[in-house]
């Protein structure tokens, strides 16, 4: 099988070089043809996208844009559409994730970009969506308008399929030209979305591009970053740092670095009836995309004093992970990942010899590992369904070990009664957590969430103010002045 990646606007008769990336899974081979543009071609693309978006997108109303995205998402949600079928067939080969996990994951993800959710997106950040269309009166007097940049460049990661949609759709909503660079790990979905979008709204055909180059290509990045007004980057701090060195100071850089998430379970969620359900939800957050997301939990803090003890909960969790393995098997790991997993597991086992309270569940050939520990330090696991359960009495006992990692914290999944939820949320917010969510929902942020505590649209736009004085002053020059 062969699939061409990306989407290019009309840059005339150009011969585009391609590079073949090969993916195999269970005997199925997929060759992915990634376009490799020359510097000159890349420049043509940026110019085209810039011009087209300022002529087309900038003159559309936000309502029109939302309807177009909605129609494109509808195509991708329709299980009979060619694109959806292609996604369901090819993404498992490229990412290695289970077919069923991809299918359900796609639906739950795409649902967030339907019309009503998109409206929420806009209102969430701007209050008044019309700010994107024209000057709107302000309470303080005067008028303001939100203007999107001419060109946003996205450098995407490939850990979770379809993830580029968050930033690409945000870019479209602010009426910017968008060029996205897909990652070699999941190069497909963003291009399909662009193709569907253009099929639904042919007038947008030159307003966006989805391209590929090998990450870290210094010369190319240095050149292309010059054309962008905003660069949105995803990746490790090391790669973001090196990226930032290539971005001119006049270009805004929005880096999304690696993050770590965790869960906290109060003893109220651990009575004999609720504990199993709690473990089931927690296990889902672990198995979904094999903990490759920034929102994926690595640790569950479990409060003592419930009917089910934290150690018993760890055992429940192990059982749940084992049954999930039957339904949604873990993707095939690379040799490197397997070795890392085995070493992580072995090390936990060995350290349990000098720590009688520590338990390691499962065996090396299991596709998950649960470690139960008391008073352990906060530390991410090696992912791919490895998790630590740490017992605690009071929240205050665990905060000091977590707060040290302020810069890396993201989601906390909480199972607790309302009073504790708010009290704990307060504490976690203070030490750097930016998202509190239900167990079972950790890998599925709501539409309009504040990704790493930031704004989706507000961070992209700049506001233009007409101050009250200008308005008043203008009156003085009006034709109707007496």
């Amino acid at each position: 099988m062969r699939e061409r990646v990306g989407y290019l606007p009309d840059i005339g008769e150009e011969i585009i070089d391609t590079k073949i990336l090969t993916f195999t899974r269970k005997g199925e081979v997929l060759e992915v043809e990634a376009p490799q543009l020359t510097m000159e071609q890349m420049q043509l693309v940026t110019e085209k996208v810039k011009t087209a978006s300022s002529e087309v997108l900038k003159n559309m109303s936000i309502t029109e844009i939302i309807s177009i995205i909605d129609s494109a998402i509808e195509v991708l949600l329709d299980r009979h559409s060619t694109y959806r079928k292609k996604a369901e067939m090819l993404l498992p080969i490229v990412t290695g994730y289970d077919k069923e996990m991809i299918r359900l994951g796609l639906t739950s993800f795409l649902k967030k970009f339907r019309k009503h959710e998109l409206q929420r997106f806009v209102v969430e950040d701007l209050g008044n969506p019309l700010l994107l269309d024209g000057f709107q009166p302000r309470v303080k007097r005067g008028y303001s308008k939100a203007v999107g940049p001419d060109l946003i460049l996205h450098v995407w990661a490939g850990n979770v399929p379809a993830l580029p949609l968050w930033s690409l759709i945000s870019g479209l909503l602010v009426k910017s030209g968008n060029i996205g660079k897909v990652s070699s790990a999941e190069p497909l979905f963003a291009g399909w979305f662009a193709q569907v979008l253009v099929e639904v709204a042919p007038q947008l055909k030159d307003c966006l591009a989805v391209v590929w180059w090998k990450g870290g290509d210094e010369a190319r990045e240095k050149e292309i970053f010059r054309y962008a007004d905003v660069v949105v980057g995803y990746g490790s701090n090391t790669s973001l740092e090196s990226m930032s060195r290539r971005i001119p100071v006049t270009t805004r850089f929005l880096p999304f670095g690696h993050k770590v998430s965790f869960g906290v379970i109060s003893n109220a969620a651990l009575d004999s009836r609720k504990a199993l359900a709690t473990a089931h939800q927690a296990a889902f957050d672990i198995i979904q995309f094999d903990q490759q997301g920034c929102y994926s939990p690595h640790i569950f803090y479990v409060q003592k004093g419930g009917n089910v003890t934290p150690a018993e909960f760890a055992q429940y969790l192990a059982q749940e992970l084992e049954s999930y393995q039957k339904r949604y098997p873990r993707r095939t790991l690379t040799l490197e990942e397997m070795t890392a997993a085995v070493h992580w597991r072995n090390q936990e086992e060995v350290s349990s010899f000098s720590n009688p309270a520590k338990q390691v569940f499962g065996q090396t050939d299991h596709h998950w590992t649960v470690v139960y520990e008391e008073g352990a330090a906060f530390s991410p696991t090696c992912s791919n369904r490895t998790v630590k359960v740490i017992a605690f009495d009071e929240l205050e006992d665990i905060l000091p070990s977590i707060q040290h990692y302020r810069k890396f914290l993201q989601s906390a999944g909480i199972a607790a009664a309302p009073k504790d939820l708010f009290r704990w949320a307060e504490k976690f917010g203070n030490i750097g957590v930016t998202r509190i969510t239900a167990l079972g929902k950790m890998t599925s942020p709501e539409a309009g969430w504040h990704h790493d505590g930031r704004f989706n649209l507000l961070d992209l736009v700049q506001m233009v103010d007409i101050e009250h004085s200008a308005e008043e002053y203008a009156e003085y020059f009006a034709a109707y002045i007496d």
Partner: protein
Amino acid sequence: MELQQIINQLMTVLQSDSLSDDEFNHYALQLFAYQYTNNLPFRKFCQQKGKTIRTVKSWKDIPAVPINAFKEVALTCTPPEEAERYFMTSGTTQGVKGKHYHPTLQVWNLSMKTYFKQRFMKETEKIRMGILFPTEEEMPNSSLARYLALAKQEFGTEESHYLLGENGIDLERLIQELEHAERSDEPYAILGASFSFVHLFEELAKIGRSFQLPAGSKILDTGGFKNQSKEWELGEFYHELSRVLGVPRKDCINMYGMTELSSQLYDTGNEQVPSIKSGPHWLKTRIIHPLTGKEVAEGERGVIVHCDLANFNSVSTILTEDLGMKVGEGFLLLGRVQGTEAKGCSLAVEEFIKAATEPTR
């Protein structure tokens, strides 16, 4: 068996010419029983894997202990405080270094000398050596410092010496030595850490010099050269080594050793990279699938496991973090698993640990 018996037997084994498979198996199982009995953390490790003296029937069944375990527990059959020497691992986990205890260095020394002679010295009895590494006094817990000190003491001529000063390479001395070798036509050997050679390249490039060492000269490098100013490809490294010092690549030997072992492995020169590595008759290497622990087929990639009979006091069988591929009687070393970089935005453990050691704000 008693400790002294084990040691005596080993000394004989190390001095023998070879071991049959049955003999190797016999000694390995004997050693396993000894370690299972006397090394408590190891016994627990085995029990966790469901392995006991009764169920381990072949040396291949002996549970391979991950090198990280050395950082977590004292893997020793004798009280650590009675050890003649312990070697420390270079890698750390959250600042903790692993320790490998040796109640006596007798076995370690004999293992080193016997196989060093066979693989590096060959017919040569003594050679003038320059060592690109700190001395044993400067680094008493470095197994590599010990190794190089022993090499110099046993196989180096009187004029052999260290080439590292307080501020890195003693360039003046080095050039003197290289010039002397060129003039006198006396074979010369340089031994050291691979990254020291990278520094040597840089120093010589600065002054624009290269040398043509006389026939019979040799180089021994060991360890990797990651995190240097420039990432070196293996082929590039040996090309440069050979070019700068005028030693043919077949005489540039790489030693593959680990603090967690008591023996070393070598290749037969680096005309081609990666080279095929192999160890002495008292050490056997397997390439396994990390999850099942089963040996992979020849030509397939897997994780390297060593069973080293000379590791009598800790654990005979080590699970490395190195990837390899079996080729004939040896194996190709395909690099180290570096905690594996996370693919997306989930935080990699290494990055996290790095952050933990930095000041918060």
